[in-house]
């Protein structure tokens, strides 16, 4: 089933009876060439690109719950390519290009909206740092415009510019940044993978990884044993547990990150705004809700809900930046489990076990990475070679200290990112 304007018109006139399921609900087979553990954004995009770019057919995605029920459906949907360090820059640049072609590629409306992202700065030092970052973005082939205070005021007149603690000096404007409908991204990739023959198996929790003589041979699941030649672990916050099933310990600590949404309002915030000094960022969804969030709660957690101190902190920062939001009522808040690495950058690599691969460590920034991560992880799974855009995301960089990608420049240590 292909979506088109004509099809919508036809269905509208004939009682919407012609829509079919977006994917099958297959029984797991006894054996696959490649198993992907985790049906989040990264697992689904990996399966999609394995089928599309590499022509592989005998693939299954094993998801313990339902597709898109993890972080991919819980995040605040910022899509951007404003990274600074080699290793990250080329990867996120590639990802943004994939985003820009995604709806046509998937024939699916993921509501990708390049409404522009503005990172605010509040001192001369910060201005210098953002000018440098902007230059790095331009060198990478992406877009960045350094705005002074009046430039920001033109775009965001409702901010409190004269606040005493963090007066707004300007902002780094990234016009191609924006947002997308998070679960539509999961659904679009799921449908694309299914159409190309990938089995998407839900309610199938992996409970063990079978290893024989240093080689992976399959997995144990709540729906029985499944054999495979290659296995990719793509389970975000649960990476440590899957690794433990293979006898590995990872440089990962799982933390909870919260987000908030208000009641639906008329359009008032046209961009994505990031107020780093207050650990606060905000955008407005197409339904009208103000979607905003802040920092981690800062203690290891699998609770998928956060605590009050961070809620207060986020609300205070929001009120500091734009007092007008004080009138909006918060409808809901929730949390997702983030796979935090010591340097804040991800891992796409082989493991020491033959045939076992891992894609994890996306911290709080893995939504924008969904296309490129799947693209590059599929490349690694299919060819056993690192893709040039993801060649820096090595598991052993922590051990060797070589090739750390510490975007924030705070150090390679847990609890610093």
């Amino acid at each position, binding site marked *: 089933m292909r979506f088109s304007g004509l099809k919508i018109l036809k269905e509208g006139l004939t009682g919407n009876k012609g829509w079919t399921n977006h994917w099958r609900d297959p029984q797991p087979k006894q054996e696959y060439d490649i198993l992907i553990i985790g049906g989040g954004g990264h697992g689904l995009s990996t399966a999609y690109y394995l089928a599309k770019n590499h022509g592989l057919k005998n693939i299954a995605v094993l998801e313990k719950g339902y597709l898109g029920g993890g972080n991919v459906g819980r995040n605040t949907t910022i899509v951007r390519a404003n990274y600074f360090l080699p290793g990250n820059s080329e990867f996120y640049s590639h990802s943004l290009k994939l985003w820009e072609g995604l709806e046509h590629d998937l024939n699916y409306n993921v509501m990708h909206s390049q409404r522009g992202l503005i990172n605010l700065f509040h001192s001369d030092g910060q201005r210098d740092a953002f000018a440098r970052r902007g230059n790095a973005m331009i060198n990478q082939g992406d877009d960045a415009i350094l705005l002074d205070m009046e430039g920001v005021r033109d775009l965001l007149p409702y901010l409190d510019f004269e606040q005493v603690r963090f007066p707004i000096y300007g902002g780094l404007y990234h016009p191609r940044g924006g947002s997308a409908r998070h679960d539509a991204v999961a659904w679009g990739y799921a449908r694309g993978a299914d159409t190309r023959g990938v089995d998407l198996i839900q309610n199938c929790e992996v409970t063990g990884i079978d290893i024989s003589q240093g080689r992976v041979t399959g997995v144990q699941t709540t729906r029985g044993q499944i054999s495979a030649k290659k296995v990719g672990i793509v389970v975000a916050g649960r990476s440590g547990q899957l690794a433990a099933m293979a006898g590995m*310990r*990872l440089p*990962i*600590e799982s933390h909870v990150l919260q987000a908030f949404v208000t009641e639906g309002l008329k359009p008032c915030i046209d961009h994505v705004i990031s107020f780093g000094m207050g650990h606060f960022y905000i955008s407005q969804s197409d339904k009208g809700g103000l979607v905003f969030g802040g920092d981690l709660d*800062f203690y290891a957690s699998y*609770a998928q809900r956060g605590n009050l101190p961070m809620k207060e902190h986020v609300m205070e920062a929001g009120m500091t930046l734009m007092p007008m939001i004080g009138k909006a009522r918060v409808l809901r808040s929730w949390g997702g489990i983030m796979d935090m690495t010591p340097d804040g950058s991800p891992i796409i690599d082989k493991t020491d076990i033959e045939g076992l691969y891992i894609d994890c460590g996306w911290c709080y920034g893995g939504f924008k990475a969904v296309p490129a991560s799947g693209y590059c992880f599929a490349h690694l799974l299919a060819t056993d070679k690192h893709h040039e855009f993801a060649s820096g995301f090595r598991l052993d960089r*922590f*051990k060797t200290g070589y090739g750390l990608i510490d975007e924030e420049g705070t150090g390679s240590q847990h609890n610093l990112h």
Partner: protein
Amino acid sequence: MRIPCPTCGDRDRREFYYVGDAQIINRPSPEASEDIWNDYLHNRDNPAGVTKDLWYHENGCNSWLVVTRNTTNHEVQHAELVTKLKGDGS
């Protein structure tokens, strides 16, 4: 979330700084291998369930504490002074 500091009693989580897994208090010897140091500095059990982690009571008695918690539901079970676990001067 409240943490039962052995010196100060039940105190709000805001008074404490979180460091990470309590394995950090067992520093390997400087001569230990690269693998041991890597394990100590970076790799984590990261359990979904009961864990022990290191907290600092920065807005209280300035003690380092090993806190026993459940990571799946925020339950705080116990807190112990590091000096008591390791003996003074460590």
